[in-house]
């Protein structure tokens, strides 16, 4: 597969680069002109459209090309092209006022906007529940800061951690924590982690995870740019993955379901891979065998009993 990527890149890249440099030079030439004729602009637009089309076609033809380096290179090329596209109206449409750039904000709302943006940045970290920057720890609900009963949860930058936010199985804990309602989960940049969450109300968005076990129930599930993840999921819609590989899915463990009365059988779900939009099965995910599923659940239960990260490596997907 790598070989075919290489041959593809070798033929495609020069062709595309030639197109791009041609376009670049023409844009530069057009900028240098004192006034721009509609013909020149049209010519540029056509060139840009051609290059974009070529790129999109090639991407569509080689969807298996998921090695992130090659792919992100191509994406960068698209981005630069798009930037060029956005830049063009600067000189093309003189009839329009030019407020979208930097000129207008001071002009239109000089009074409040700088001050308000300054206050809104710290706001973003203070109002929701954040669990961030830990290594080698077993984190539970008691490690969370004070929060309203309903909150969204942001988990980021953890390494070798077990995050156990399941309601405590022992009766010693105060009852209030059992009612925690998580309205959304945002996880980013977790490595070598085990995430044990109850069934949450809202959606889960996960970015940039590797070597993790995710145990979660949610309304929707989206995972991006992640690899080597085991996902034990309870969900009523279709989970989706995008730009991921080596993902294994299985059902949410019944023993972690909080209330026995809500003992509904987990419904089977089907996974959609947005990086593989075609009828053939996606190579980026698979289903966990029932044997490894039950082994994993046993390991998770023993972690909870010890409340320690000892042996975490054995549970993580390799």
């Amino acid at each position, binding site marked *: 597969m790598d070989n075919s990527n290489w041959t593809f890149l070798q033929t495609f890249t020069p062709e595309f680069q030639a197109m791009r440099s041609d376009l670049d030079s023409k844009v530069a030439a057009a900028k240098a002109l004192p006034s721009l004729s509609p013909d020149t602009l049209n010519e540029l637009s056509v060139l840009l459209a051609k290059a974009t089309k070529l790129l*999109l076609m090639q991407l569509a033809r080689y969807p298996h090309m998921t090695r992130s380096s090659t792919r992100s290179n191509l994406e960068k090329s*698209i981005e630069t092209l*798009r930037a060029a596209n*956005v830049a063009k*109206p600067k000189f093309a*449409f003189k009839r*329009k*006022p030019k*407020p*979208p750039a930097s000129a*207008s*904000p001071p002009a*239109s*709302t000089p009074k*409040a*906007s700088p001050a*308000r*943006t300054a206050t*809104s940045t710290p*706001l*973003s970290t203070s*109002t*929701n529940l954040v669990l961030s920057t830990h290594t080698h720890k077993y984190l539970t609900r008691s490690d969370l800061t004070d929060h*309203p009963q*309903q*909150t*969204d949860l*942001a988990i980021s930058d953890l390494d070798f951690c077990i995050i156990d936010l399941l309601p405590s199985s022992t009766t010693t804990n105060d009852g209030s924590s059992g009612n925690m309602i998580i*309205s*959304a989960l*945002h996880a*980013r940049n977790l490595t070598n982690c085990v995430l044990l969450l109850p069934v949450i109300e*809202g*959606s889960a*968005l996960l970015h940039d995870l590797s070597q993790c076990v995710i145990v979660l129930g949610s309304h*929707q599930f*989206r995972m*991006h740019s992640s690899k080597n993840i085991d996902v034990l999921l309870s969900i*009523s*819609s*279709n989970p*989706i993955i*995008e*730009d991921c590989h080596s993902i294994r899915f299985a059902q949410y463990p019944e023993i972690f379901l909080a209330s026995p009365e809500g003992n509904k059988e987990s419904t089977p779900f089907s996974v*959609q891979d*947005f*990086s593989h*939009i075609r009828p053939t099965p996606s190579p980026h995910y698979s289903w966990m065998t029932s044997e490894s599923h039950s082994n994993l659940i046993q390991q998770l239960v023993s972690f909870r009993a010890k409340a320690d990260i000892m042996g975490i490596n054995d549970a993580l997907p390799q």
Partner: protein
Amino acid sequence: MGLLTIIRKNRQKEKEMRLLFLGLDNAGKTTILKKLNGEDISSISPTLGFNIKTFAHGKYTLNIWDVGGQRTLRPYWRNYFEQTDALVWVVDSGDRARMQDCKQELHSLLTEDRLAGASLLVFANKQDLQGSMTDAEICDSLDLHSITTHRWKIWSCSAVTGENLVSGLDWVVNDVAERLYYSSTSTSQPKPSTKELPIATQ
């Protein structure tokens, strides 16, 4: 039936509008549409591709295009710009972390020639969630005040409860109508929509 009646009827038929629903993934575009249409919203999956809904709103027929917001799908948004009368930009008011991303995507859309005439309605969705940003905060975060190329309005709403969905749609439909059918709007006041919105029962 005279000729005038026929002409009027024909004109009535033409009163269509094309609305394009866009926004980042997990904003709630599909949920808003399904709620407006009185459908079940409990098991909506992330949109792979697009949905089209056609329904009557007041005296207009709305053709609503709802295109998925996942990153891989965003390059395809441009395929849906043609003949769009209004852009409805849906924002997840609880998603503070991606407001910058949201702002960039919106502002890059507004530079598109093919969306030049379109009215812009920003739905600040998920207001039912505690701790979500207010419409004023979102207005600042998305720098809406800098928009001078489009007529715009921000509307806080909740797709889950149905709050403010119809009134937001009313604004955008009337705004488009003033532009497209100005000869016939001057006499008529905005009517409440023909479809009653089921208020959340769950």
